[in-house]
């Protein structure tokens, strides 16, 4: 199985771990991530004004490329996942945006949201299946109590992203179970870490992440996993991270599949 792969700028730089472990795990699980050539940054943020178009074009190009390859489009970064899915929804359902974007891009054939955008976790859940994944695990993470930290961008708005129940998700918990570990469910797992305000208000993000650590460790988590480079950054800025490490979910996946070393 081949997928078009949109890594995004952060995965090429500060979040290389998220990327490389995903690639090695994909090989172990028998599917291929084909990085799309000349991808451009998604912008990190879905455009603020519903009448904006220029800021959506980079996503549209990536989506259209995948369509031309006849492949689903995979992302790992929560921000890219968020932006690509929302832009794709616009292209599918908002006539005005679709027309203007197509007029600008002049593809051979107009793009109207045909590509299916999948988060890497969705591939594990919906294509491979967590039961199958569990069978491929060679180093089960037994005895570990792992808290999934979802953050905001993967889940909301739930109707458009259609990733999981935005208030009580379970995809990462099922993932943790498949790796042989015990998921820790805590209510801060879908609350914001403070996001991009870390740039100007780092103290505020520290308050937020402290609450996340308090809640998750209160329920017994010994480490956290995330799919978002920004959450990772903010969580790691917290003092608590020295005792409760934070991993990209792909790192634990690679570890369980026994492909971490070679990655």
């Amino acid at each position, binding site marked *: 199985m081949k997928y078009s792969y949109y890594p995004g700028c952060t995965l090429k730089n500060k979040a290389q771990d998220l990327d490389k472990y995903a690639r090695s795990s994909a090989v172990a699980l028998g599917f291929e991530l084909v990085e799309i050539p000349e991808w451009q940054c998604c912008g990190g*943020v879905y455009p603020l004004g519903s009448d904006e178009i220029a800021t959506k074009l980079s996503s549209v190009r990536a989506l259209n490329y995948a369509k031309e390859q006849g492949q689903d489009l995979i992302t790992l*970064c929560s921000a890219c996942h968020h932006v690509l899915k929302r832009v794709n929804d616009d292209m599918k359902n908002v006539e005005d945006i679709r027309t203007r974007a197509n007029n600008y891009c002049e593809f051979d054939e107009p793009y109207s949201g045909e590509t299916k955008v999948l988060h890497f976790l969705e591939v594990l859940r919906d294509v491979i299946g967590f039961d199958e994944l569990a069978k491929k695990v060679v180093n089960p993470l037994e005895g570990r109590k792992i808290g999934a930290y979802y953050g905001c961008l993967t889940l909301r708005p739930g109707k458009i992203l259609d990733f999981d129940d935005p208030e009580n998700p379970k995809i990462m918990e099922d993932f943790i179970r498949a790796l042989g570990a015990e998921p820790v469910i805590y209510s801060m797992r879908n*609350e914001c870490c403070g996001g991009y305000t870390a740039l100007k208000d780092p103290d505020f993000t520290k308050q937020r992440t402290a609450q996340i650590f308090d809640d998750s460790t209160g329920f017994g988590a010994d480490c956290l996993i995330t799919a978002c480079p920004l959450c990772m950054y903010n969580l790691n800025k917290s003092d608590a991270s020295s005792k409760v490490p934070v991993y990209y979910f792909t790192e634990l996946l690679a570890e369980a599949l026994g492909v971490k070393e070679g990655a």
Partner: protein
Amino acid sequence: MSMTQLEKNIEAIKEMSGSDPYKCMRCGKCTASCPAYSEMDIKPHQFASYIIRGDFEELIESKAAWKCLSCFACIERCPRDVQPGKLVDATRQMVARSRGGDYLQPEEVPALLAEDLPQQLLVSAFRRYRR
């Protein structure tokens, strides 16, 4: 139906934000959900009433728009489909479009940079804080 000037202005905000402030019933679920509550001088549920009253200047002057985390919790939970987060985004746009008043200047950036700062953060901050 003919409209007052205020209604026309609000109509423009509706277009830009994709959110209808008149639908708000002041239940405050957005404000209850808001993780940045303590930082915001105008609370999420007040955005609709400020717009309906036409107090655009006060919105533009406020720091609330820059404190919103864009976490979409209010958008997800709003029972009236007002989705206050969209009105916050519209306010940011009003600032940028009406007066070019960006909240983040490029000159500030080097001082704010940390070694391990992910690109995603910089890109998002620029998008959120500037035109």
